[in-house]
């Protein structure tokens, strides 16, 4: 198992979060929890999309409500660029309903995490994504 994972290129995650403190906290926790992954962070959707184009990460974790380009818009573009990318949405309850209402045009996210974020939930879905990627 270890050998395989060593052979494979490292898994990379793009984290998009417009709230600075939250971005900092999440990036610290994630880099500590998943020391093997490469973590990219972006403060808004536009920067996130640009970073995605550069690094084509495997997993995208994005807040849904952001200025410049919101999470949904960014995720849609990402899905176009790399259909296999795993997309995890962090959302408030109302935002979730909006997301459900507006996903009729083919866009599907892989997971969503409700605010306030419980780390374990986030860790679980990331683990799940990693598993999915490794089994492909």
């Amino acid at each position, binding site marked *: 198992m270890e050998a395989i994972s060593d052979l494979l290129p490292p898994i990379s995650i793009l984290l998009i979060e417009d*709230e600075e*403190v*939250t971005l900092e*906290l*999440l990036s*610290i*926790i994630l880099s*500590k*929890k998943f020391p093997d992954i490469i973590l990219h962070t972006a403060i808004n959707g536009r920067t996130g999309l640009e970073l995605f184009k550069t690094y084509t990460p495997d997993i995208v974790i994005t807040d849904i*409500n952001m*200025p410049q380009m*919101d999470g949904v818009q960014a995720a849609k573009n990402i899905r176009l660029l790399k259909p296999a990318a795993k997309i995890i949405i962090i959302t*408030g309850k*109302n*935002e979730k309903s909006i997301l459900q209402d507006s996903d009729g045009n083919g866009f599907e996210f892989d997971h969503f995490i409700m*605010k*306030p*974020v*419980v*780390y374990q939930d986030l860790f679980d879905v990331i683990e799940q994504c990693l598993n999915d990627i490794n089994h492909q």
Partner: protein
Amino acid sequence: MTGILRVLLVEDNPGDADLIVELLPDKCEVVVAARISEAREHAGAERFDILLLDLGLPDSNGLDTLRTMRLYAVELPIIVMTGNNDEQMGLAAIREGAQDYLIKGQIAQNLLVRSIKYAVERKQTENALKELNATLEERIVERTAQLTSANETLQFEIAVRRRTEDALRISHDRINAILEQMSDGFAAFDHDWRYTFINPAAAKAFQTTPEQLLGKSIWEMWPPAYDLPLGANFRRSLQENIPIQFEEFYPAPLNRWFECRCHPTSEGLVTFFSDITERKQSEEELRQSEERFRIMGEILPYGVWWCNAHGGAEYCSQSFLDLIEMSMDEMREFGWSNRLPLDEIEPMMKRWMHCVQTGEDWDDEHHVLGPDGKYHTILTRGRPVRDNTGSIVGWAGINLDIDERKRLEEVLKKLNEELDSRVAERTAELRDKDQLLLIQSRQAAMGEMIGNIAHQWRQPLNTLGLIVQQLPFLYDIGELSKESLDKSTQQSMNLILHMSKTIDDFRNFFRPDKEMVEFKVSEAIITTLSLIEDSFKSHRIRIEVNTKHDPAINGYPNEYSQALLNILNNARDALIEREVDDPRVTINISADGDRAVVTISDNAGGIPEEIMRKIFDPYFTTKGPQSGTGVGLFMSKTIIEKNMGGMLAACNIANGAEFRIEV
């Protein structure tokens, strides 16, 4: 000759005298005078039958003697005695009035007697003749006087007759002139109904000329007339020899009313026509006018009345007659007063007579006995009717049944009370509704606010959660240091303070303004935006604020913010509902004179024209029962216009709606 013959012998010669006496018959009584003066005395004092006069006397001579004696003895026959051969003197004496003469010396007895006899007779004849003559003269004078008088009378009569004739001629001319010129028509007919005279006015009235009618029969010229009242009246006037006057309407082509007077004369019939169409029309108008007033009078309870100048009633409406149960004749003058209560008659009459005398308006209340045996209260009002000189010719007025009015007043009062109570009920209902509206409005605002708080808190709560969770995580991996603990605590406290401030902001916002204060419009807008910015951010709605001026206004800042909030929330909802790309809200702050002007515009496509009129109505909403209460804009308008004396209006701009708030 009978009895004694008295002889006056005037002879100065006594011899001659004795001779004569001797010659006189026995039955003679002789008085002798020698002088004329003696003779005069005798002739004046005594009666004699004959005077024998010698012309040659001592105191008179010749014819003078005769003339003297004729003066003193007018009726006495005189025989003068002349000298020898003096016949000339004798004849002259006869011419002077002596009856005979004797020549002295030739006097014989028989001659003397015969002379005396003839002289007496001659004198008597002469006297009788004289007397007859005198009578004749007298009668001539008398007759002459009679003739003169008769002549004068005749002259007078002739003059009178002449004047009468002149007058008659003038009169005739005048009548002709009058007939020619008068406006009345005049036509004369003979016994065979032929026109013998027709004046221009009549010809004009009949629409013809006199020449066409003269000599022709009226029945030929105007056949329908025979069967008209005119024909019957003409014939009757002539047959019964009476004047007749009548009025008649003549249809087309005349279409006029005429008054006609016809008088029978020895020559036929004379007729006068006058066109009374205008009078008839006036009469008809007057009648209709009077009829109108009568009808109006009948409609009013107890109607109208009129009186003559001295206050006596002449007419009143039937309704009043019915009330007092009198006929018009019984009511007339002061008959109606019999229906007044006894104690009211005198004072009321006094008041009425006062009005009649002064011409003051009549306005009185009294009672009259009705057919139901009860006294009815009557309000009567009247005014004097004046002719064009201002003199009062009568009075006109109305009677009003106040019983009815009082009953109606009662009904009205009851209706009013009912209305009042219904108004009160309705007002209470409305107040309840307003209350409900207020509560709903507040609840809606609360709901909005809770939504906003949720937005405001969601992010910091999330962050706080992450910080808290980070601590055991760091502890588990052995990296929980003093430094990281302090940092986490600091981050947590920052978030908690921020959230606390948010709560304070909302609480302040909900605290009602107690009094008007001066505040800056821009500050109110910043406060408002701070409450909703997260909500807008979550929908990616950009808010742009342009501040041209920063005016301050006097008012209620929280209410003002609430008004802004309602408008901003509507803009947000519209932008979300219509899924606008690049949703945007623009707020412009400026000043117009001393008024602060804030416009809030969006790019959500605008308000449909058909609802533009209703958007400020209470309970009007486009959002459906779950999300809209329909009180937001209503409250905003109330706050801005009623509470702060400003103006709130909405209009559509290029790609959205714009609300303009002026305070």
